[in-house]
Every structure is written in structure tokens, then in C-alpha cells.
């Protein structure tokens, strides 16, 4: 075991891990994050906390993580290279680890032009692959990126994102290989609607044995409405929503759409369970955290294993 | 008839010293020279309107416009200038009556009448009571066309009108005249001579 991360233990035990995600508030009201925590408690092994998602300013992931930790959950610290240079990133990692947060996700982050501060400078001092190398160096060599020693180095369980549906498709496996070479421990993929394409990607991953070098969690997101389906298909870059999904969502009356979304999500999970190399699921129910328990339960992923 | 002689001579290139002429030319010559004393008084108050058909073989295909002028001179002399209306188009550009080339004997009656429709329309356009057809083929066709156009006009030979205007047209020679002319200028050989 490289870290004391609960997620690592679950994955190491061979069980299908389940993680979820919640967005911190657009203000200082800690209750919101605590409430979301309550919803997910016991239902998932770990909970991602986003970092200024879509470049919209929110309470920092670090602060939200601390609240969830205090509430007894296993938070995952998400950090983007867009907003901080390498000093600030390492400082936050030290602080988080000190608060007992031992799992994190290294991301590049969406471009500021999508968010509410398009005029802001984007830092990108290091990119996501170099970020993984940095955290690995801190953990395994106990050294800062600059080379100095760390007093009581943080043992972080290192995660990253992967988007099997972005272009050029033939490059996506090689990119995962780069992250593995950089030292990533687990991967959470972009939400999967085009299952065939995902399976094709997994074939490539297996061909290079990457699924043995890191745990791959399949990302899923339940659709709330046909409108959301269309929005995700056309407006969100790197998202591959096949027409059947949009047709299915549009095929049911308005009030039935939410349930249809959940059904699709559960069906996807059932099918993804069969895919060799999928070590777990990352359920992203953006602003719909209350549905996660129902999904996890209906997907037969309860009860969560308790690991020492 | 004139045409078949002309065509025959040419087809079998029989070298002939004689010249083939159309009768219209001589009718016109004789009228001009006063030998044929036609007069159109009979139609002065009747005011029957006449038009004339330019047979293709005689006008367009052989003697051309000059003979058409002679034909018109003859007709105007016998029915009166003011009662004559020309079809459009006319002379060498006239439309064919649709009955030539053996079509009359061919038996395809409907097709023949269909082709004749243009001629019928031309005659109706002139509003003439009588159409003089100086060629037997044209006469038969136009006469038949009159049948299918509810007798809108009478079709009559040129010699018939000449004799009528000479006043020598006997009672049994008025087959093609309408009732309006049946009694006009009747010539009774037995009493007149």
C-alpha cells in the first residue's frame, strides 16, 4: 500500500470502488457542503470535491475537503494547474495532507474563457502530467519539486482524469500511458455515454497492460432532461453523447425524464461491470447528489466494503 | 392533278417538250382579257364572305406566289373584292389542309382530322361562309373538316363559283353550295338557250 487512502484500500482489495463528486458552494456557507456530505456518507468510498469547476469561482476544494473529513467522509482533493503555480500547489498539498486528506486528483482545468473571469490570466505553471510527477516526487522521494527535502512528506494517493472520447482518439491510450509513466495511481474517466467507444479505448488500455498499473474508475453522469442531453452533446467540449441517448431522453414525457436518466446510468454501470479493467465507478451527479445513493443501490454496489 | 403530271415527268425523267401550267393562270388571263365575263353582282347584297385555300403542291411546292395572286384575282372577280378574306398565313406560307399525300384514302380519319384542325382554325378565324378549294384533295379534306366543325362553312370548287358568277351553273351542279346560294343565278339550259 502506498498510502493510507481508503480508496486505495478498497481498490487493492479487489472490490469495485465507488466515488462520487460534489461541488463546493459559490459562497461561504459551509452547511451546503456538509449537507452534500451527509447524502453520500456510507454510500461511496470517497467523494471528489471540484476545484473552481468550469473556471467558476467556488469555495476552495481544500476547505471543502476539510469539512467533509470532519464529517467522517473520505474526500478527494481535486486541484487544477490553471489557478496556482507550483509553490501554491505544494503548499496546499502539505496543508491538506496535514488535515488527513490523502487522495487527490491532478487536472489541467477548463479554460478561463468558459468561466466568470475570462479576463483572468491562466497560470498553467506545470501541466497535469508534470503535476503527477511532482506529487509522486513529494510522496516517494520526500522532496519538493525544487529539490528540497520535505519534513514528513505527504503520502498522497494520486489520481488523474482521462477522456477516452476527445480527439485524436488514437492518441488517448498513449496519453494515459504518459500519466501512468508519470506515476498516477488511479484514473477517473470522463462521463461515458458512448459505451462502444469506451470499450474500444479499454481494449487499447488492456493491450498495453495499463489497467494493471493503475486503477481505472468509469465515470458516469445521470441525465436530468433532454435539454441537458442536448447541451452536453453540443456545448460541452470533449463530451460524446450518441443520438440514441438524446432520442431516449426526448422520448419520454417531461416529468419522466429524470427517472429515464437514472435508468440509463444504472444500465451503463451494469454493462461497464463486465468490462475487464474497470476497477470501479465515479458517479458525477452535478447538483443532484441526492440521487447518488439510489444509483449506487440500484447498481448493486451496496453495501460498501469496510476496510481497516 | 397538275402536280401529279409534273411529279411524274420529273420522277421518271421523261424528257418532255411541253410546258405544264396551272389552270388558275389562264382563268385570270381570260378574265383580264374579258373572254370570261364573270361578275360579282350576285353577291353585292348577299355579302357572303369567301376565303380561299392555297394548295401546297400548286403554290408552295411549284408555281409559288405569282399563281396565288392569279387565284386571288379570279376569286375576287367572281365574289367581289370586299367579300374576300385571306387566311393567315397564306400564299406560299399557307398551312397544308392535312388531306394530301394519300391521307384521304389512308383511312386514318381521326389522325387526318387532327392534322386538319389548324386549317379548320384558320378558316374559322376568317369567319368566311364559303371556302373555295381549287384542288380536289384540299376540297375533300376541307369539306370533311366542315362536317366535324358543325358546318361552320361551305366548301366549294373554283369552277362552281366561276360558273355561278357566269350564270351558267345548272341546278344539278350545286351540290356543294349552301342553301343561301342554291337558288342564286340558276341556269336552266333548256329555257335559256
Amino acid at each position: 500500500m502506498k498510502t493510507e487512502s481508503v480508496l486505495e484500500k478498497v481498490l487493492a482489495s479487489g472490490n469495485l470502488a465507488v466515488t462520487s463528486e460534489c461541488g463546493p458552494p459559490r459562497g461561504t456557507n459551509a452547511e451546503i457542503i456538509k449537507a452534500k456530505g451527509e447524502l453520500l456518507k456510507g454510500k461511496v468510498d470517497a467523494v471528489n470535491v471540484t476545484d473552481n469547476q468550469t473556471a467558476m469561482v467556488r469555495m476552495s476544494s481544500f476547505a471543502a475537503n476539510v469539512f467533509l473529513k470532519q464529517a467522517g467522509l473520505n474526500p478527494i482533493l481535486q486541484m487544477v494547474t490553471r489557478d496556482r503555480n507550483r509553490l501554491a500547489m505544494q503548499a496546499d498539498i502539505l496543508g491538506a495532507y496535514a488535515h488527513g486528506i490523502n487522495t487527490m486528483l491532478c487536472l489541467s482545468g477548463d479554460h478561463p474563457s468558459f468561466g466568470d473571469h475570462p479576463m483572468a490570466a491562466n497560470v498553467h505553471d506545470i501541466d497535469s502530467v508534470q503535476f503527477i510527477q511532482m506529487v509522486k516526487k513529494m510522496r516517494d522521494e520526500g522532496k519538493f519539486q525544487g529539490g528540497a527535502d520535505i519534513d514528513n512528506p505527504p503520502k498522497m494517493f494520486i489520481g488523474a482524469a482521462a477522456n477516452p472520447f476527445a480527439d485524436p482518439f488514437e492518441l488517448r491510450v498513449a496519453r494515459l500511458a504518459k500519466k501512468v509513466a508519470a506515476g498516477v495511481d488511479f484514473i477517473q474517466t470522463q462521463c461515458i455515454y458512448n459505451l462502444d467507444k469506451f470499450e474500444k479505448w479499454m481494449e487499447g488500455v488492456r493491450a498495453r497492460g495499463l489497467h494493471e498499473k493503475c486503477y481505472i474508475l468509469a465515470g458516469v453522469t445521470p441525465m436530468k432532461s433532454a435539454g441537458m442531453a442536448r447541451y452536453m452533446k453540443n456545448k460541452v467540449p470533449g463530451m460524446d453523447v450518441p443520438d440514441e441517448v438524446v432520442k431516449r431522453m426526448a422520448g419520454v414525457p417531461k416529468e419522466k425524464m429524470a427517472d429515464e436518466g437514472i435508468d440509463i446510468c444504472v444500465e451503463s454501470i451494469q454493462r461497464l461491470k463486465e468490462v475487464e479493467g474497470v476497477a470501479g465507478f465515479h458517479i458525477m451527479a452535478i447538483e443532484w447528489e441526492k440521487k447518488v445513493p439510489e444509483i449506487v443501490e440500484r447498481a448493486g454496489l451496496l453495501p460498501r466494503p469496510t476496510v481497516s | 392533278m397538275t402536280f401529279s403530271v409534273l411529279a411524274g415527268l420529273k420522277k421518271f425523267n421523261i424528257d418532255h417538250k411541253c410546258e405544264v401550267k396551272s389552270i388558275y393562270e389562264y382563268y385570270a388571263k381570260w378574265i383580264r382579257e374579258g373572254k370570261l365575263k364573270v361578275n360579282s353582282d350576285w353577291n353585292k347584297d348577299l355579302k357572303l364572305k369567301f376565303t380561299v385555300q392555297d394548295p401546297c403542291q400548286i403554290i408552295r411546292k411549284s408555281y409559288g406566289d405569282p399563281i396565288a395572286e392569279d387565284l386571288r384575282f379570279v376569286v375576287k372577280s367572281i365574289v367581289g373584292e370586299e367579300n374576300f378574306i385571306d387566311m393567315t398565313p397564306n400564299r406560299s406560307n399557307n398551312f397544308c389542309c392535312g388531306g394530301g399525300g394519300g391521307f384521304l384514302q389512308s383511312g386514318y380519319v381521326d389522325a387526318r382530322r387532327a392534322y386538319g384542325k389548324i386549317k379548320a382554325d384558320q378558316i374559322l378565324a376568317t369567319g368566311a361562309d364559303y371556302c373555295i378549294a381549287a384542288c380536289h384533295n384540299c376540297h375533300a379534306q376541307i369539306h370533311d373538316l366542315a362536317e366535324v366543325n358543325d358546318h361552320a362553312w361551305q366548301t366549294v370548287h373554283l369552277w362552281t363559283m366561276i360558273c355561278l358568277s357566269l350564270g351558267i351553273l345548272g341546278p344539278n351542279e350545286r351540290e356543294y353550295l349552301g342553301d343561301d346560294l342554291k337558288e342564286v343565278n340558276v341556269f336552266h339550259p333548256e329555257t335559256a338557250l
Partner: protein
Amino acid sequence: MITAERKPLEELIEYVRPYDRILLVGCNECVTVCAAGGRKEVGLLASALKMAFAKEGKTIDIKELTLERQCDPEYIEELVPHIEDVDAVMSMACGCGVQEIAKRFKNIPVFPAVNTKFMGASEQQGIWAERCQGCGDCLLGLTGGICPIARCSKHLMNGPCGGSTNGKCEISPDVDCVWQLIWDRLKALGMEDRYEEIIPAKDWRTAGGGGPRKIIREDLAE
């Protein structure tokens, strides 16, 4: 070459409003090539300013001059005879020119007439595109001669990011995803394996991160 684009006229009018005699200085190098500050643009701007003020009934005297370059002191020296009888100078050169004039003539205001944009190349007559940010430590050797720093909106050195869709950047369909271009280029050169070598974190000091930079050639400098 360094590219630039003339500032909106209102801004320039406000700059020179308090002054009666202006020296308008063009530059015959990069800004001429990108049609922003050459001799012709100097003429057009002078005329435009005079007309704008004439509209308000105010006459303004603009003296037009175009130097060979404005980033060498000797050429700046050529302004000396004209400086006495003007109240302000407006330079149509890139940022370097404006600052050299300001540095040389302490007691006279200098205003920029153009916005210096980027180091770029001419895609076609009349269109220039960014090619280099002068990061001081060129990695074109690793990417088949296409620069991700200048041409990726997140200057990722191990791209492409998750937002690249059919060869275009996530921010806009008109912007090529540079990593798509790099990948196509590497494929064409048969150097696909070069893609998997991780480019380590960059030392940004060479890119100005370490403060304003200088190049010193001992063989040339006193």
C-alpha cells in the same frame, strides 16, 4: 516579426487632446510590414486626427516623420531637431519604440498609437497569426517544429487536453488544437513514439518569469 494593430481612434484623440503640436513618428520595420505603423499609416492617422479635431473646431498641428527603426538609439537621435517645437510625441512603433523615445526625451510625453500584439507570421496577405511567445527555452525540437507554448490556450507541454474536438481547441472552432497539429506532424515524420516522452516541468525564468531579460554578447559589448 513583431505584429501590432492601431489603437481605436477615440483613445488616441484623448491622448493628444491637451496638446497643440504633435510629432507622429512611424517605424519602417515590423509595423510597416503588418501595416500598422508604416509611413502610410502615419499619414492616415495624422489626417484622421486633424479631421477629428477640426470637427470640434480645434486645429492641431501634426508633424509626420518615419524612422528606419525606433529600437536603436541612433535612429531616435534623428528626432532631436523636431522635439523642440512639439508638445507631445505619439509613436506608431511597437512597445520598444515608444519606450526608447520616452527614455531618450525625459521631459516630453510619449503616447503609443498601436497595441503591440505578438511575434507571428503572415498566414496570407493581410492576416498574421501568433507563432512565438519568446519563452527563452525553445522546445520546438521535441514537438516536430510546432510550438504548444505559443499556440495552445493552456500552453500544455503534454497535451492534448480533454477538450480537443475534431482538431480544434475547446475555446473556439476557429482555433486549431496545436497538439492535433503536432500529432499529425509526428505521424508524418514517423516519429510517433516521440509523443510519449514526457516533457518535464518548464523553467520559466528564461521566459521572463525571472524578471526582464537581457542578452549580452561580451565580444560585442564594451
